[in-house]
């Protein structure tokens, strides 16, 4: 029996799935386009660009394309704001057939005019979509003309859906952010740090910002969660970039390093261990003894606060098995560590867009026999969750009902999360959430019905 037949999957997919073995070192095939005809859980270039830029609270996000691209991404994740609410609206050119035939530039110009007339914006992001990429509207020219006419920033985001995958969209968003940063040519003064790649889901950014403020680190700019355009424009003056969501922001951090000489460090505030390590790393890099001491103080205080509660949940969670299917490899790694600290064994780990080195790390962190997979489809998720006896799946919106149908508990660690899962308090929230789903009485009813237990 061939290996792929054993796994019950497509020949084309066999190199994207592996059973962890400490003896046989084999790299996972990743960073590829999805196989045509597969039920991929992945999205497109536009989607990647939109999720990264959308949390900029006071920007006008204008989607140049047919209505769908705008409507599916309207307020699509719970990025919280302490300022403007502009980003929670959906602006679109709603291209119709005649625009496809005669070109959509006129309509786009009109749409920008109408935004300016009604709202007096400072920054408009204009996204191209699949069809715009094909009919050849000159987005850059239209945006440039509008900038000159109104003396505001109108920044094109080149994101035709077919021109790559979600990571390509992250890159397009990063370019748009750089474009925005270049608005001001003020003399650079090094101060504070930038937080990159926290989208303030359920207010997570505020927790992180709170820690930094407490130890005496000034936050210069954060993007894109709870950010304003003005704040992003002053990002070049920071002395350090810390990168939370590595998948979406590493490339931008590298470019900022090159262009503005700002070094960056990847951090993770998912789980206690990573939170502590990250705080220490940031303090070390800034090099001020006072901050280093404050960090130790904060760690001590916060750990004391959550210790008892975490222990309470650990006792209720120990012994369960978990499956992980998330967007990026960096998050998967943090989750593995967090599960381990709660006594939960990760038996399946997959990501939509993980990188080679991340998969190598995942192999190191997980047990023999753990299934590791890239760009998985529901059939594969089902198969391996069942085979490995997972009690809970951590994933995104499309995985939730699948898990439930299998009688498996679920935790949304993606756009749909409702409680902050960052830092010390986030670790408790995570454990609480796992407890609320794993130990729900509903599974007993299901087990009874399907004749199990």
């Amino acid at each position, binding site marked *: 029996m061939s290996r792929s037949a054993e796994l019950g999957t*497509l020949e084309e997919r066999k190199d994207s799935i592996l059973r962890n073995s400490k003896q046989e070192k084999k790299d996972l095939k990743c960073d590829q*386009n*999805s*196989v*045509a*005809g*597969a*039920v*991929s859980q*992945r*999205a*497109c*270039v536009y*989607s990647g660009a939109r999720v990264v830029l959308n949390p900029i609270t006071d920007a006008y996000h*204008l989607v140049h*394309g*047919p*209505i*769908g691209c705008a*409507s*599916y991404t*309207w307020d699509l994740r719970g990025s919280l704001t302490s300022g403007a609410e*502009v980003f*929670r*609206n*959906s*602006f*679109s*050119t709603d*291209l119709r*057939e005649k*625009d*496809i035939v005669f070109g959509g530039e006129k*309509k*786009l*110009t*009109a*749409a920008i005019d*109408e935004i300016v007339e*009604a709202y007096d914006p400072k920054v408009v992001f204009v996204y191209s*979509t*699949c*069809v715009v990429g*094909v009919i050849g509207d000159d987005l850059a020219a239209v945006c440039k003309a509008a900038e000159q006419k109104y003396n505001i920033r109108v920044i094109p985001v080149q994101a035709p*859906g*077919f021109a*790559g995958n979600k990571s390509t969209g992250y890159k397009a968003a990063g370019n748009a952010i750089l474009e925005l940063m270049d608005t001001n040519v003020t003399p650079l003064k090094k101060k504070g740090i930038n937080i990159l790649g926290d989208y303030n889901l359920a207010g997570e950014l505020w927790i992180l910002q709170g820690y930094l403020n407490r130890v005496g680190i000034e936050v210069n700019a954060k993007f894109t969660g709870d950010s304003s355009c003005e704040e992003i424009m002053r990002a070049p003056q920071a002395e350090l970039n810390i990168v939370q969501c590595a998948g979406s922001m590493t490339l931008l951090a590298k470019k900022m390093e090159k262009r503005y000489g700002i070094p960056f460090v990847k951090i993770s505030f998912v789980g206690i261990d990573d939170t502590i390590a990250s705080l220490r790393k940031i303090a070390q890099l800034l090099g001020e003894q006072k901050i280093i001491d404050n960090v130790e103080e904060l760690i001590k205080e916060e750990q004391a606060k959550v210790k008892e509660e975490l222990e309470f949940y650990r006792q209720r969670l120990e012994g369960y098995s978990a499956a992980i299917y998330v967007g990026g490899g960096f998050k998967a790694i943090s989750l593995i560590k967090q599960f381990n600290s709660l006594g939960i064994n990760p038996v399946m780990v997959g990501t939509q867009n993980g990188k080679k080195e991340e998969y190598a790390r995942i192999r190191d962190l997980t047990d023999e026999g753990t299934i590791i997979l890239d760009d998985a*489809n*529901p*059939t594969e998720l089902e198969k391996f969750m069942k085979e490995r006896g997972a009690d809970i799946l951590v994933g995104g919106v*499309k995985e*939730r*009902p699948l898990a439930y*149908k*299998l009688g498996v508990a679920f935790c949304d660690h993606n756009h749909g999360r409702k409680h902050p899962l960052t830092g010390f308090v986030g670790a408790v929230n995570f454990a609480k959430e796992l407890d609320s789903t794993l130990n729900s009485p509903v599974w007993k009813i*299901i*087990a009874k*019905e*399907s004749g*199990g237990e």
Partner: protein
Amino acid sequence: MSLTPKKITERSGLVVNPVKTCQPIGAMYAALGINKCLPHSHGSQGCCSFHRMHLTRHFRDPVVATTSSFTEGASVFGGRSNLNTSMKNIWKLYNPDVVAINTTCLSETIGDDVGSMIASMDLPEGKTVIHASTPSYVGSHITGYSNMVQAMIKQLAQKDEEASNEKINLIPGFVDPGDMREIKRITKLMGIPFTMLPDTSGVVDSPMTGKYEMYPKGGTTIEEIKDSGNSKATIALGSFASEAGAFELERKCDVKPYVLKTPIGVKATDEFIMQLVKITGQEVPYALEEERGQLVDIMTDTHFHFHGKTVAIFGDPDVVIAMTEFVVSLGMTPKYVVTGTPGKEFKQQVDAILEDAGVEGVKVKNPGDLLELHQWIKNESVDLIIGNSYGKYIAKEEDIPLVRFGFPILDRSVQSYLPIVGYKGAMRLIEKISGALLDRADRDATEEDLELVM
């Protein structure tokens, strides 16, 4: 901070906060109503992912579909090889009985002819492939539903020379599976054999068994769709979503079409049942008479809660038209009626209802968007909003109660299991609407004005 300017300006290029989405998701929903069918999206993978996400959020059930995963190459050289690879992989990996392919703006714009691509494919024994052209820049998701229904009939239905199968075809429109179940229940109570097509009940409201079924039990079978050409008549519920399929069947197999409103409220339900009576000669059973009597009794008991209350209704055309008729019958005054789906018929149908009821000064708009609706409300408020989850922004800002109805509902659950159609559905709507109005009255009452009995 309110973003909505009170001053209304003409817009020619900009849509803000839409009341529609694109064709392919409607086609996907219709395709899910075929038994053991895998919808396939011929375009970029993002489209498919978004549609599945949106449907999953509304129904809270797994929604599975495949995609041709267009890349740069496909968008230059055409999607034929992507489609061929897709089909090969689909049969091997997912083994559905039927694949229903919808196009997207991308594959349409580059000129892919899916029909001829399928014709030159070798299908495995016993498998069926249908396809609908659903460019996102035409119509809306309702158009996409309509096109897929038309496609399944055009490509599958057949008339055998033998006599009629005595069945009635029922095209339910873009409604929840709970509604489809109710329409079927009523027809069964009448003792009339029927085929509902498409039928998403048992697919996106499938029961928990502890086992994941990629193809749940529900859905219209291929045999039934083929046999729909032998039926006595077709009842299309909702002209926007359903009439194209009914007319197609008339053209192809000479099955008589009857286009009715979505049966929301007493009048539209009466019309549906009377149409069944006219076609079949069956009598209305006491069970239905009793339900109707109960509904009218409820309407009598509660009429004073509704009288003169103003309401804004938005959503998809067929259900919004029917809902307008229903709220008018409750004594409420619709003030704003909006859909994003284009089509002249919308205004004609709504205007006819309003004229019939003698209601004047109503703003009816299609295609309209929620920015404009919000502006209208800012200028002259209403007592209630009826619409999908996107209405919550306006409801919150203007402090107006919202009764959730239509598609999508992303922030409440259970609605897709229960009907809003039929007499039972009308009772449920009354419970929701009066509940919302009376909760608001209680909330706003001063302590001395709070009443126990209402």
